[in-house]
């Protein structure tokens, strides 16, 4: 050790202090407050009464019929909403990965000078408000919109493809909302990749796709994981794309929670409880991943 210490270990805690402080005060404390709220009694039409109860969680998991006097049964309504939202966010993440990885790869293989410009090109559309972008997307895909008119004029289809108010439109909207959150982290990781490794693999007669799977993917995996987290988790709670493009016919997690705070139901403890259940699910998934990653790191 000629040059001295390079260990970051003693600095780890000091370096985390700013993050702890900012998030602790402005995110953790409000969340703890909400955790408490989920165990309180709802005040009629919004607000809470400081009487501790499990009513909100009971409402989530158990049903006693429309009038509340039937035998208690498992309430599938909200579990189904969770399932559908998770499925939707999962598909969105997969789509973003399929398109986002090649895009990130493409940017990383440009000359160093132009890479920053490409990054900006990916993010420029996001200077326009999400609502406006989603409305414009809807304009493009509606029955008499440019996409359908174009396809019909070249004779590819006879009648308009019904896209608006379908799950396909919702997926398109979600994909459009979160794409850069996949591209940029992957780019950050791919840019580091040493192409000499690919060349070495090619010299050993590995096919392109074997090289991609066996050599590239392990190196850029942290970027892919970061991208998946950044797309999946926000997509779980998204409601603008489902509402505007899907027709808001069914609650998603995001709109269900929104309704409890801003809709006429005004049930804060239930909204808080749904959020806490969502939070614990995501938290569990993240911690399991972090454990697995740490174990792998030790090997």
């Amino acid at each position: 050790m000629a040059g001295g210490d390079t260990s970051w270990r003693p600095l780890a805690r000091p370096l985390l202090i700013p993050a702890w402080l900012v998030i602790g005060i402005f995110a953790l404390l409000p969340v703890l407050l909400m955790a408490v709220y989920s165990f309180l009694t709802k005040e009629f039409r919004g607000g809470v009464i400081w009487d501790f109860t499990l009513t909100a969680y009971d409402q989530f998991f158990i049903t006693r019929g429309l009038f509340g006097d039937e035998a208690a049964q498992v309430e599938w309504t909200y579990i189904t909403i969770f399932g559908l939202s998770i499925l939707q966010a999962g598909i969105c993440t997969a789509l973003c990965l399929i398109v986002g990885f090649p895009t990130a790869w493409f940017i990383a293989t440009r000359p160093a000078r132009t890479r920053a410009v490409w990054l900006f090109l990916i993010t420029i559309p996001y200077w326009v408000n999400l609502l406006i972008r989603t409305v414009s997307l809807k304009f493009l895909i509606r029955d008499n919109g440019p996409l359908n008119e174009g396809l019909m004029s070249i004779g590819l289809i006879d009648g308009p493809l019904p896209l608006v108010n379908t799950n396909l439109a919702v997926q398109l909207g979600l994909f459009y909302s979160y794409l850069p959150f996949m591209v940029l982290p992957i780019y950050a990781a791919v840019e580091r990749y040493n192409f000499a490794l690919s060349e070495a693999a090619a010299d050993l007669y590995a096919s392109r796709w074997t090289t991609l799977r066996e050599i590239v993917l392990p190196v850029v995996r942290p970027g892919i994981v970061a991208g998946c987290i950044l797309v999946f988790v926000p997509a779980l709670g998204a409601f603008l794309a489902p509402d505007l493009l899907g027709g808001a016919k069914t609650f998603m997690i995001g709109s269900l929670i929104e309704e409890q705070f801003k809709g006429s139901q005004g049930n804060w403890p239930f909204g808080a409880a749904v959020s806490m259940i969502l939070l614990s699910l995501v938290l569990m998934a993240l911690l399991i991943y972090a454990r697995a990653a740490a174990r792998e790191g030790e090997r």
Partner: protein
Amino acid sequence: MKGVRYYPGFLPLTVLCLVILYAPLIVVMAYSFNGSTSITKWGGFSLRWYVDVFTGPDAGRFGQAAWNSLTIALMAATSATVIATAAALAMVKGGRFRGKGASFALINLPLMVPEIVTAVASLIFFTAIGLTTGYGTILVAHMAFCIPFAFLPIAARLEGIEGSYEQAARDLYATRAQAFRLILLPLLAPGLASGWLLAFIISLDDFIITNFVKGAGMETLPTAIFGSVKQGIKPNIMAISTLMLAVSVLFVTAAYLINRKGQKTP
């Protein structure tokens, strides 16, 4: 034989990605020049909505809102990137320490909580500790929820950087700060750029949290724009959006030119 950087299908997917990203923007730009008051019916080419943006009754409100949005996004993204970089160094380079798992969860917490919950809870919290809602509360709230968006790309980048570079620098008698500034930071740059950009667009776009913690008379662009929704989106919103795109293109061009100049003089 094409090079190892080539993968069949990657280029078409990239093109697809750009087409999808930019197609709706063409609608936005086209309808900003619409002569009618509707965004669904075309009423001939006109610049009236641009005139409206600068001289209409809401000109002051939108100008101020755009200014607030840009300054808040710049400050929130920058401070979040600094905080996230420090946190990423600790998490990735700091080895094992107690509370690491908890720290990881904490840093990503703003990502996991639905926005409306953060919004209501933050408002209750700010009111309880006697903070006046306004520019300051928006800024700190944005800073907090921007951190994970900056942290994840930076940490992902950092994981690919071996300690050997830094060790080599230290072997050559660079001080610790020098090794960090001259070796680690440039290696980290793509991660920093990605993280900062994501934090920036997340802050620029936020409506729900901002709407709750902004206080009377404060507007950001999203809150001002959502205002127009009750009566239907008018083309003046499209004009404002197009102007925002123009500003962003200016930024990009400036960044490109500065970058090129920097590369000419090593």
